[in-house]
């Protein structure tokens, strides 16, 4: 039987650790992806992801269900990412090394993906990460939450603590910067 997030949360609050593990299994990938796209470093993303669930586990007794469990998790993860960026005092998105080992990439490719496809995908990743690094934090967060996590504008506004129209404007402006940066990289 598949439990909803809310049911698993209730059971977790009741002391059922297995229910919390189910929540972790369900949400670890999205939280990891969010942290990776925000921070750009795999190890840091993994650490933030783990810390997110640890904090959630400690605080789940105080979760009253005013927001969705996923929104609550996203808030914890985003706060951790923000703290991490401030603590590290460095650009949040990683720059991939210039000298890419084609053979190494070939080992990563899927069964139907050619080496050329893998190289192209890697180039695109580098271009996108560079472009995302140009964005102010609030624009980047808005784009990540909307584009990759499918949150509604209202949910993003609740997470960011700002009006709905501000979120839409941030997203539009962020996309406009990305359009410009991506156009530059094509030249």
């Amino acid at each position, binding site marked *: 039987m598949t439990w909803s997030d809310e049911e698993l949360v209730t059971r977790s609050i009741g002391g059922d650790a297995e229910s919390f593990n189910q929540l972790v299994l369900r949400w670890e990938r999205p939280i990891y992806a969010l942290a990776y796209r925000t921070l750009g470093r795999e190890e840091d993303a*993994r650490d933030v992801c783990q810390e997110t669930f640890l904090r959630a586990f400690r605080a789940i007794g105080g979760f009253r269900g005013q927001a969705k469990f996923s929104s609550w998790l996203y808030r914890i993860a985003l706060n951790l990412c923000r703290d991490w960026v401030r603590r590290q005092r460095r650009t949040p998105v990683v720059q991939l090394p210039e000298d890419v080992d084609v053979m190494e990439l070939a080992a990563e490719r899927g069964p139907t993906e050619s080496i050329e496809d893998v190289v192209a995908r890697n180039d695109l990743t580098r271009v996108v990460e560079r472009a995302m690094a140009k964005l102010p934090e609030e624009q980047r967060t808005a784009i990540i939450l909307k584009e990759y996590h499918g949150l509604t504008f209202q949910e993003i506004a609740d997470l960011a603590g700002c009006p709905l129209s501000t979120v839409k404007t941030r997203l539009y402006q962020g996309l406009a910067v990305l359009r410009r940066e991506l156009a530059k990289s094509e030249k």
Partner: protein
Amino acid sequence: MTDITCIYPDREAVLAGYLYDDLETAERVAFDSHVMTCLPCRSELAELRQVRTTLGKWAPPEPTRVLAFEPRTSNPEPRTWWHHVPVWAQVAAAMLVLGVSASIANLDIRYDSRGLNVTTGWSKPAPVTPAMSPTVAPAAVAETVSNDSVSREEFNQLRAQLQSELRARASVVRAASAVVPAGATMSDGEFERRVRALLDESEKNQKKELAVRLVQLQRDFNALLQNERGQTNQLFRDVTNTYGPQLQNQQKQINYLLPAGR
């Protein structure tokens, strides 16, 4: 890039909502109509959709390690100090304690063709006296016996000491008193027999306890060895998984280069 000349109200926010299909119905219908007639908005929408397509190809890498999260339902038990000592040091310390204990108890542990033989100080044979020649005269024998034997006074002293020790051990005394009627005096022979019986019993218990401890020690040691072996195998598997693909790549490169060099 599109030059924006459109003055649609709250254009940026509406455009973003339209792009992600996150507008109220009325708002969307109105903007639909506007886009049909507004070239800048139509162009910009197309460009932003292209940006979204590019963004959609940006996938985070698979984490190289599985996320490990095991919530603790309760506080872990406080670890005693010896849990921080390496296993090998714990084993060494255990062996040292065992050795010291054996020395104190004057133990003699031998493993020979007759198997494991454990002898405590109590059962150690007395120093070997030179074998008497059958030609030795009876008078000489008597003299030797007289020299080796303890005096009556020493014997009485030893008996008193042993009796006091026996009294201290209530259980032993109770056992003895159950056999000997109260007020009855014990003969020297009877007393010696009882002492020997007690000593034999004590020795048996010590042997049994030591054997149990030795077997336990051996089991613990085997378990440790098995555990270490398991960890080593796991490490080897991890290394193989980590570097296997790299080795394969190198092999591919070598295979690729070899024909060219020939």
